[in-house]
């Protein structure tokens, strides 16, 4: 299983801060498609995905036990 984390405006959209999904072996790009199916509009805001606390590329493959976080555009400072 992959642990998914949602923050800020994306969490407002998903309605939950985190969940588990059977996405091991899938790419980050495929994760995005899966998320867009479940939460239409999630890609619109320009979110990036971080895997195990590092920004990931669309081609990176998820491994069992990974944590993938949806990072909407940041606005710290």
């Amino acid at each position, binding site marked *: 299983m992959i642990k998914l984390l949602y923050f800020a*405006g994306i969490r407002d959209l998903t309605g939950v801060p985190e969940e588990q999904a059977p996405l091991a072996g899938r790419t980050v790009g495929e994760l995005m498609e899966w998320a867009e199916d479940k939460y239409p509009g999630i890609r*619109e805001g320009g979110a990036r995905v971080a895997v195990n*606390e590092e920004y990931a590329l669309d081609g990176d493959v998820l491994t069992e036990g990974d944590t993938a976080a949806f990072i*909407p*555009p*940041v*606005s*710290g*400072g």
Partner: protein
Amino acid sequence: MSIYEITDKPIDPQRYADHVLRPEAGAVVTFTGHVREWTKGIRTLYLSYEAYVPMAEKKMAQIGREIGEKWEGTRIAIAHRIGELDVGEVAVVIAVSSPHRKAAYEANEYAIERIKQDVPIWKKEIWETGEQWIGDQNKKPEVRNP
């Protein structure tokens, strides 16, 4: 040694400035970002900050390492607050010491630019008329009284 922290407590900037001071430092530049009351004609009541805490601290430490490589002899401390902040309160502090002042200014400004690019922290502005998560892709509401 270095400080890179997300905190839900009020920030005391002097603590970070003191932390980076060393006998070989001739200059300390401390930046604090504050909750501003008015932004583009909209009055902010308060802000709410949220962070992906472990990743945010990791990213701030990475920015610190970048600075150590670019400006030799600097020492840096960064803290960002989360939770609800009133107007005037410190949201972020960056303290940089260096033997000579130019590096301290440059490294400090680099740090805030990088924080705004990459550190997973989000700001929600709460106005009299509503609230919104702020991000590159978002727009403020139209100004009612330009």
